[in-house]
């Protein structure tokens, strides 16, 4: 399940950043990816919501880009959403 989420999330990020070579690990943070600013963050959330058919609350969207957050925590939040869907 985690691997599947990772693969799908990476494919969403490649699409949003228009970079087919983009590779992310659990420890990758938003700061380490060029162009992941507040605006791009919303674009990522929209793409993730559409691809995974989930909905994030305002506080969750903000929390996903907080200090200490990374792809691993993004995946955990996503997995939690998918489990309660």
């Amino acid at each position: 399940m985690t691997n599947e989420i990772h693969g799908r999330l990476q494919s969403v990020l490649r699409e949003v950043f228009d970079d087919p070579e983009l590779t992310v690990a659990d420890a990758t943070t938003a700061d380490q990816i060029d162009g992941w600013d507040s605006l791009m963050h919303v674009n990522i959330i929209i793409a993730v919501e559409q691809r995974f058919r989930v909905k994030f609350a305002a506080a969750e969207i903000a929390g996903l880009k907080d200090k200490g957050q990374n792809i691993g925590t993004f995946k955990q939040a996503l997995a939690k959403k998918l489990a309660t869907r």
Partner: protein
Amino acid sequence: MSVASAQFLVAALLFAAGFFRLPAGNWRRHLFVVALVAFLCFSLSGLPGLAGLTVFILSGYGVARWLAKSPNPMVFGGYVVLMIAAFLVLKKYDAVRYIVPAAWLDHPIAVAGLSYILFRQIHFLTDVLQGQVARFTLMGYVSYQLNPLTLLSGPIQRFQDFEKFWADPQPLLGDLHQLLCAFQRIMIGTIKVAFIGAVCLGQFESATNEITRAMLGEFPITRWFALSRFAEVLYLYPAYVYFNFSGYCDIVIGTGALIGMKIPENFDRPYVSRNMIDFWTRQHMSLSFWIRDYLFTPLYKAIAERLPRQAPSLVFVCYFVAFFLAGVWHGSSMNFVAFGLLHGLGVSATKIWERLLIRRYGRTGLRSYMESRQLRIVAVFVTLHFVCFSFLFFTPDLERTIGMLGMAARAVLFKQI
């Protein structure tokens, strides 16, 4: 009561000294409420203010209870509209005079910290509606809203962060070093507010008074006079805003740390920002993050979901709407509209510039651009001056600002003024 006043500091330190001597739980919460009531007695201006505050906060709590039971976006939307309308009337906004009878604005209700209460309430209700607040009580919510450390001028603390303190007030500071750092921060904050900020404000007022007298014809305006006084006004007001507000935040964040409450940071060296987007991640951070999370993101998301092709262009509308509202939130007169729109322009220009760089040099080129030390110095210089210019509109007298700008422009362009 000013947080840099001797009364506040002595009261806060005495409170902090006694707080953890009480047993954990209700005893500490009760002492916090006693401090809150005492602070309100000093801050409220009479019974009408107390009545306004009570209605504003209790109605918010009532609607939150309703939303927690049955989340209904219509109820939420209707209440937020009502709340904003009440806010505009209570704060006597200029523009409201064209919509409601003048008598409505002729009221004696002055509610301390209403602007911050409004933003905290919108955040709280949004999070309750979206299931992001696990539990809340009347006393916890009222204490959150009337927290003496954030009531008058923020920072805009999120309810979830306050709740961590309220649920179980425990010491945050692990050792003597951290304790000393908290005291040091309170002392530095006091110096910033009471000395550096006060000197900047005094010099700024002296310069603006001289300019006003010169513009009234009391003495001739020379080129040197015009440029030197304008430079004082240009730099001193932003300096005053920074030292006063960041000093205030140092005091409340330091005091919060002493009583086990984590209050969000509000400043991160804003005047070394390299562009206006960077500036708003460093200046009044709790406000800019609130605007990002509860205004810009939902607005842009709604547009991008419905009109994905137009979203890259329509994002600029979102920037202007967000900064226009941020501007008018700061105050009720037209100069704040100008301030907000200027910042909307600055943020939009930053985004356009970034897109141009990416189109021309690609993301690798943008990275090299961002890493260049020389370009960073130029970018910081330009951003600082744009910010200083925008702060000319932050002062309440728009007519005087325009007069000063005209005087400075004549001094630059012509030898004779």
